[in-house]
């Protein structure tokens, strides 16, 4: 593999709600083309980590670097410009319920490109086809199943051909087969588009199937305890908490 280039770096980050510190001293790097897993038990702050990386919540301390740019140290315009190069798939899809799927995907295109309406329609059709939902353009989010909403959410996140895609618990609430298909989709997109993926999840099957790099957030110590390829971590770790997590509590 070629020399890896850092895409997103987290330095000495502390996240907190008011006085309550969720995690402290987080330092890790997401490389370009990684499928980077943020893992940890429920309530350890995985999703909060993501909200900080996508600019919805400011960190209590520390920095997030996109390339060389200090994300939270920049002015709002720069932040806006950086985050426009990122796509986010929210846990529930978070499609705008008053718009059809086509309108959902078209909105970022209408806002940020000068494409003609006909061209936008073609892009929408392509993105929906990529996530296996061709023909659902005129459906409203409430008319399709949860798994389809998530996939449509990915299609919307990909609308502007982002450099990095964030996924918040992609397989939560999906049956095993749909969850597997979603994993395959993430792998496929990374391989063919070279997009950096950041996935927040605690599904072991997904973690090992797609993760090329990861960070483990330990709720009891309120900090990260490991970072690296999940399979390597499983083989080498001596930390009982991480081992328990990666083996689903089964004794080996």
């Amino acid at each position, binding site marked *: 593999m070629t020399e890896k280039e850092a895409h997103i770096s987290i330095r000495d980050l502390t996240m907190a709600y008011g006085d309550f510190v969720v995690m402290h001293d987080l330092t890790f790097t997401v490389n370009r083309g990684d499928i980077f897993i943020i893992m940890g038990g429920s309530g350890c702050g995985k999703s909060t980590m993501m909200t900080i990386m996508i600019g*919805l919540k400011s960190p209590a301390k520390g920095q997030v670097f996109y390339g060389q740019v200090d994300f939270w140290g920049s002015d709002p315009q720069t932040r806006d*410009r950086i985050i426009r190069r990122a796509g986010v798939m929210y846990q*529930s899809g978070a*499609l*705008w*319920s*008053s718009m059809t799927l086509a309108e959902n995907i078209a909105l970022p295109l209408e*806002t940020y490109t000068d494409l003609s309406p006909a061209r936008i329609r073609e892009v929408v059709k392509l993105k929906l086809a990529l996530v296996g939902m061709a023909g659902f353009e005129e459906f409203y989010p409430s008319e399709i199943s949860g798994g389809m909403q998530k996939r449509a959410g990915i299609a919307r996140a990909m609308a502007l051909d982002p450099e990095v895609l964030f996924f918040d618990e992609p397989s939560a609430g999906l049956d095993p087969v749909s969850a597997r298909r979603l994993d395959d989709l993430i792998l496929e997109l990374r391989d063919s588009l070279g997009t950096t993926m950041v996935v927040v999840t605690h599904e072991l099957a997904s973690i090992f199937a797609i993760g090329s790099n990861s960070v483990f957030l330990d709720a009891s110590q309120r900090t990260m305890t490991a970072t690296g390829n999940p399979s390597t971590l499983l083989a080498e770790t001596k930390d009982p908490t991480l081992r328990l997590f990666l083996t689903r509590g089964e004794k080996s």
Partner: protein
Amino acid sequence: MPAPAELQLQKSAEDTLTVALTGSWKLGEALPSADEIQQKLDGKPAIKKIVFDTRQLTDWDSGLLIFLVDLREFCTQQKIPIDDSGLPQGARKLLALAAAVPEKKDARKAAGKVSFFTHVGSETVDFFRSSGEMLTFIGDTVIAFGNLLRGKAQYRKSDLGLVLESCGGQALPIVSLICFLVGLILAFIGAIQLKLFGAQIYVADLVGIAMVRLMAAIMTGIVMAGRTGGAFAAQLGTMQVNQEIDALKTLGISPMEFLVLPRMLALALMMPLLCLYANIMGILGGMVVGVGMLDIGFTQYYNETVKAVNLWNLGIGLFSGIVFGVIVALSGCMRGMQCGRSASAVGEAATSAVVTAIVGIILSTALITVLCNLLGI
């Protein structure tokens, strides 16, 4: 009919207490409590062990388990070992399961007593914080409006159309009904007094001025607060719960421009029109009473109304209408945007939106009335 639950305590050996459980130990029936054993043990420090005899136990469910958990807690405090081998196997396993993860002591909500001063202090801090949030929101709205004037605001024209329709045309029936009846009621009340002086004709003045200057705007405002303000808060609140607003933000689309602006604009545009319509309905209501009951001629009533109501009255009424529209839209959108992430938070947001709007309407009415008085109009 199963035998009732009973508890028998025997000292089977010098230091052993046998607890015999008989009958049906099910929730909803009268069950003996663990206190009985506690009382018995209190007097006998010699007991070093508790065993169970459940051969006569016919039936059990959580009722038995609660009893056993109580008993175990007490015995752990007193350091008396329990031998659970006499219990049914299922109960034994469930008991072990309940003890598998120790109770997290700091997980309990702190329910400590809050002193009066602490309470007043935190309420005051909250009040200032929420006032600050309100000002921030108003500021954001003004910025969004500025962007609109410069033609840079990101919103969908079709959204504006939809909101215009829902807070304009669709509100007509309820506004008609309410304002027609308010006009009617005003005329009735006025008529009773004015009849004493034989001045029935002034019912037209009373209804005309009251409706056009004030009542139409207030009634429309309150109807819209309940109808549209609550709906705005619920819509935006649900979008907040579904992370739809987060999705807008991460795309760099300002929710203030995309969601709040069209709603604000629609209400501010529609409220004066609704007020104008409400004026007509109110005067019609008064006319029904005047012409029907007080034997005032139709033309006479009309002429009297035209004579009484001047342009200032109409202007103040329409101005109030615009102000109320902005207040209703502002409180609805603000409460919706501030909404928490649960279903009950959406309900609170809707309630709070309506309350804020109505308080705002009454306060600004008072302000406008005083101002008009000072200006002599």
